């Protein structure tokens, strides 16, 4: 997509709408993870509306770009984007986390647009490597995107996958790190420091792109840059604000995994109006 001012403004509006849906879903469900859903909302909205090659009418189209949400607890964001881009009716969003719903508490294949379940952290980058290798075997040109949380990179499996992606020269693979600086138990730097982040990924053979994860033109540029990198995987290290867009949730750790109450939902929706 050409990054005209109109397009940028359009994407901003879409991201704001996605944030509203996230709050509505979580408010209705009374449980779930707002903080990380809001922090990665701009990254994933831009991905689905302006970057990804996909066809919501054919969720299993073989040539589609793949997206895998390794930080599965942020699925309210994914569900909102999938509904808004036409994978399933928007009314379904309010069934999140209910018995029998196609929208499980963590991603599941019963949701149109979800290729692989996630939720147990640390496994998703390996899944994305598998998708990337499958593209090579089938001589297809689709790209693979994988959203990870910062706390999630404390898992050893992530680094096994990082090593493999570089070894196999998976240049069709683009990691997205939602670096909001928080995990359930506190700040990542206090719980288990993950710094130096960029140096680690570079040492594992990745091309790193460091951006402000709420700067939409910069997000678009980052996806475009990743596409040009050959012979190695890329990762967009996106500095974000946990709970972004709702003043009383921003950088408040307790909103990692606690849904807003009814008054909080109302207040948040007013802010996002």
């Amino acid at each position, binding site marked *: 997509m050409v990054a005209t001012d109109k397009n940028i403004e359009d994407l901003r509006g879409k991201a704001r709408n996605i944030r509203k849906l996230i709050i509505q879903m979580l408010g209705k469900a009374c449980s779930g993870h707002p903080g990380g859903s809001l922090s990665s909302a701009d990254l994933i909205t831009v991905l689905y509306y302006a970057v990804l090659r996909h066809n919501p009418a054919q969720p299993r189209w*073989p040539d589609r770009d793949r997206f895998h949400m390794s930080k599965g607890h942020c699925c309210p964001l994914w569900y909102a984007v999938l509904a808004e881009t036409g994978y399933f009716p928007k009314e379904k969003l309010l069934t999140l986390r209910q018995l029998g719903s196609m929208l499980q508490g963590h991603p599941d294949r019963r949701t149109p647009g979800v290729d692989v379940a996630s*939720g147990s952290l640390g*496994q998703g980058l390996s*899944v994305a490597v598998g*998708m990337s290798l499958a593209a090579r075997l089938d001589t297809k040109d689709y790209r693979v995107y994988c959203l990870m949380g910062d706390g999630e990179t404390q898992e050893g499996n992530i680094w*096994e996958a990082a090593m493999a992606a570089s070894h196999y020269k998976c240049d069709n693979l683009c990691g997205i790190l939602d670096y909001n600086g928080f995990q359930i138990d506190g700040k990542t730097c206090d719980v288990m420091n993950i710094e130096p982040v960029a140096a680690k990924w570079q040492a594992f053979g990745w091309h790193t792109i460091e951006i402000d994860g709420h700067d939409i033109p910069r997000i678009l540029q980052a996806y475009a840059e990743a596409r040009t990198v050959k012979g190695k995987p890329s990762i967009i290290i996106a500095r974000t604000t946990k709970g972004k867009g709702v003043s009383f949730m921003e950088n408040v750790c307790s909103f990692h995994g606690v849904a807003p109450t009814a008054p909080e939902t109302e207040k948040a929706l007013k802010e996002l109006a």
Partner: protein
Amino acid sequence: MAELLYQRDVYGKTLVELGKLNCDVVVMDADLSSSTRTGLFAKEFPQRFFNVGVAEQNMMAISVGLASCGKTVFVSTFAMFATGRAWDQVRNGVAYNNFDVKIVATHAGVSVGPDGASHQALEDIALMRVIPNMTIVVPCDGPQTREAVLCAARTKGPFYIRLGRAKVPTIEQKKEFVLGEAQVLCEGNDVAIVSCGTMVVEALAAVAELAKQGINARLLNVHTIRPLDTQAIRDAAKSTKGIVVCEEHSTIGGLASSIDEVVSESHPTTVLRVGIKSRFGQSGEPEQLFKEYHLTSADIVKAALAIVAHT
């Protein structure tokens, strides 16, 4: 004398066969391709073989990504690491998604021998059996390994196939492998002996010994642990005085537990277990270890006699 074969040799050769038939067959290993014999496939189809190094969790989760794109992925390492180290990836990745990932694990049981306890998986069937969607096959010899692997390739969904390290004699008297159907190797109504894998040959020797003592034992080769042939188990429970279950596995959670679950619900009877009784393995030669852990035909005979004597 029956032919002696390494199950893993047969596995490697069967993979090559499959590779020629189906270009969507992909094979993975975690630095044990010479031991598991996936190296045979690697030589023929280097493009479709991925050795991820010493990283079993990564291997299992990569297989999930490959399978999501339509590949039938054979994943191999030792049973200990396939089911222990990578359990979460198997449960949440392979099985929950119900993908075509076929875990073929070698070096199960104490017959691993000198490598000792850390490499002797005695809990792997238990670990796989609790996971929904998982089909579990324990072939008893070389030819049955080939049948099981071919069956896994043409059957949708996750498989766990358990192989040993040592050479095993080919069991002559069995019929064609049918998934989920126990094989009656000997007919008899005094006592039933239910076995799988490497223990089938011990069980056959036990049946011969019991026959000398005038006891007719029915011998079942339950190669498919899931889905279990519950009808064959119920029949054995009904028509005999009790069941001896033999397996080269912990007596907790494996074949014996599977049998218990069936008979306790439908036809309660005595079930005695010949297996490893909540102990770790240790170094030694396989024959020595079979004696040490009471896995020999003599142990099976003893259990069978106890059942006959009590009834």
